[in-house]
């Protein structure tokens, strides 16, 4: 069997699946090479948000908004249902200082044209009877949506297959070489593949793929833990985060106890479609380790109970940990690599892989087709931005 394709995508997570969908929709021959099963890495160790609420106002949130629109279209376009809902999301504040910061945040987001609004104490009560009494208020983003990340990955991959994409699981890439004709030769555990263009969508493993072509990619794994809890009574219908999550995400100083600070713990509450719920979050740089650390889990649980005291009596189903592909400016790399013509990177989404998968797929398709105009500007996502800023490649 000849394994020659227009485009080969390395990595069968949410990003690789989304790219496979959009590129095969454009009529190109596509193969996805995945070393394990589809969505077996970060895409099955995460939660399922398409959020603008936690994005820096401006480019970041505009990119999320564009992705939200695409996901809404995909929910109608893809054959498989992926538990898509768009109930909005909220951030809650525990101090006056956070309320003031939240007001500024809302003002900036509104200025950028996003549907944000402040919530007062009674709004918070309305949101869920399980909230702690002392919460001062919060803010809301109306368009935020939620999906089942696992089903979303599979729905995209199945959609791609229907459009002719070939998906090779248990196919690990060993080496990539550019031949004299300009085509790529990819040696894998399932034999040789050739392609005109190659997309590196390997998430936390993207640096290893980059290395095969001497392209350093500054992505580091940032570990996160999640608790899955069982529904007893409906706790809330929407995604909830504490305002401190933003501070934790962007590396600011919070007034919390040492373990909470050490593990980067901040409340994230996400109801699933069946009304079980996910509780996060933590952020640590501890290498490629996905072992659940019970101390982190306890810290996350304590944080959840601070915001939802009655949660102390609810049952936990399981816990898991995953690795976010982190970049130092919190933006993904969605870019052509000029040093190796025909080689693209679509990785480094940190905790926004589910949020930004659709727009990433769309952008890579546009880049491959060398369109003069892309859906959103791609300048901030370029690979060479790290060089421009003088960041040392790790």
């Amino acid at each position: 069997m000849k394994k020659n394709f227009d485009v080969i995508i390395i990595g069968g997570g949410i990003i690789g699946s989304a790219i496979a969908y959009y590129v095969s929709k454009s009529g190109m021959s596509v193969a996805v090479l995945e070393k394990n099963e589809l969505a077996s890495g970060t895409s099955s160790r995460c939660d399922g948000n398409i959020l603008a609420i936690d994005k820096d106002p401006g480019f970041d949130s505009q990119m999320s908004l564009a992705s939200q629109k695409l996901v809404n279209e995909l929910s109608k376009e893809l054959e498989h249902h992926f538990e898509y809902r768009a109930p909005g999301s909220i951030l809650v504040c525990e101090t006056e200082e956070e309320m003031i910061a939240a007001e500024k945040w809302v003002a900036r987001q509104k200025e950028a044209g996003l549907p944000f609004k402040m919530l007062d104490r009674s709004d918070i009560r309305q949101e869920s009877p399980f909230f702690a009494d002392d919460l001062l208020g919060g803010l809301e983003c109306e368009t935020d949506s939620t999906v089942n990340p696992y089903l979303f990955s599979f729905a995209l991959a199945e959609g791609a297959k229907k459009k002719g994409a070939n998906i090779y699981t248990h196919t690990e890439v060993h080496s990539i070489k550019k031949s004299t004709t300009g085509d790529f030769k990819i040696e894998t555990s399932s034999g040789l593949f050739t392609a005109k263009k190659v997309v590196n969508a390997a998430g936390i493993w993207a640096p290893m793929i980059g290395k095969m072509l001497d392209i350093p990619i500054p992505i580091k794994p940032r570990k996160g833990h999640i608790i899955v809890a069982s529904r007893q009574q409906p706790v809330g219908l929407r995604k909830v985060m504490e305002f401190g999550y933003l501070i934790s995400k962007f590396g600011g100083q919070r007034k919390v106890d040492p373990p909470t600070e050490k593990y980067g713990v901040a409340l994230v509450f996400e109801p699933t479609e069946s009304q079980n719920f996910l509780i996060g979050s933590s952020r640590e740089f501890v290498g490629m380790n996905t072992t659940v650390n019970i101390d982190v889990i306890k810290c996350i649980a304590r944080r959840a109970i601070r915001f939802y005291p009655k949660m102390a009596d609810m049952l936990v189903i399981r816990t898991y940990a995953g690795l976010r592909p982190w970049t130092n400016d919190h933006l993904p790399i969605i870019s052509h690599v000029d040093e190796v013509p025909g080689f693209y990177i679509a990785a480094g989404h940190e905790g926004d892989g589910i949020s930004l998968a659709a727009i990433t797929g769309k952008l890579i398709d546009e880049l491959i087709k060398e369109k003069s105009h892309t859906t959103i500007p791609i300048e901030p996502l370029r690979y060479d931005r790290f060089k421009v800023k003088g960041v040392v490649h790790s």
Partner: protein
Amino acid sequence: MSELVIIGAGPAGLAASIAARECGLKVTLIDEFIKPGGRLLGQLYQERDGTWWNGIKETDKLVAQAEKLGVEITCGISVYHLNKHEHGWLVHTNHGSMQAPYVLLATGAAEYHVPMPGWTLPGVMSVGAAQVMTNVHRVKVGKKGMIIGANILSFAIMHELQLADLNIACMVLPPKNEISKSAAKPMEVMKSLLRASHLAPSPILRFGSRLLINESLCKLALRFLPKKGMSVWGIPIHLRKAAIEIVGNQQVEGVKVVDITMDGEPIKGTEEIVQVDFVCISGGLYPLAELAAVAGCPFHYIPELGGHIPQHNERMETPLKGLYVAGNITGIEGAKVAIAQGFVAGYSIAEHTGASRETAKRKLEEAMKNVKDIREKAIIQFYPNVKENRDKLYGAYQCI
């Protein structure tokens, strides 16, 4: 502080607590359920010699013995994590943490799920849930039911439900899908049932065990199965019919069944609705081994023992110092084997601590021999070739 924490007060855990306590160890035995006994509580069947095996009575005997020896039994506690600590193991429970140099995992087994359309309707349950409700809680699960899935477990429990005066309309196979696999293929099911035919007082099955030793005869038998199914304890068993959907508005009202080919493919135009108000789905058992996994124990995948098995040897030791396993977590077998393994684990731990070393050593050897004897005589064998697969597993242990 206890020297040994045993997680799971089923047959294996109870037996282990008795053995370890006999040798003078301080033992704490904990269980998630409100009372000790585990799945032993639900068991009721007739032995080959005509006497009855009553799980509740067997539990009472073991509990009385353990309590007399001074085992501390605490129920209603669930363990959510297990990790290594400088002084041994740290057992995290919903009632705080416990420390002990030795931990025995006797967590038993859980049932495989077989999803199918309509399976979330009230009135659909696993066959094990029906057993617990009937024999432990003494709750009648419905008026008339259907069992989906023909295996040793479902046959055994079907008989128990019948003894409790529940009306079972019939037993059929699950729909053919990626999860049900060979459980939806009449030929495979027939073969696996024949291995246990001494259990089923059905003329066909008994006849079968003697004659249907080869595949073509099996096929022939399946082809000429009576239209009304073959009868086991008076209940029709349809190996050529599969359930394809559970129907009902607010709760189970019936099951849509269809005739199937030898290979499990539905035959169009043969669909009919059987009216029932409860459904028991049976997909077999797998070892409940999450705690071994979080503790970092290596695993082997052995389908014939029920799935992923924590690495261990015949002394019930895992490669992790101080961590032991016994009962169904080591592979799916009957309660009698679990009890025998529990004794092995208890003496094995006692011998390792140095407590009553000579006694423990002697009793350990006896107990290990006893496991083999009981396995050979076992009336209920859930999977074929258990012995061969165990030998393979224990052989592999040496190589670590």
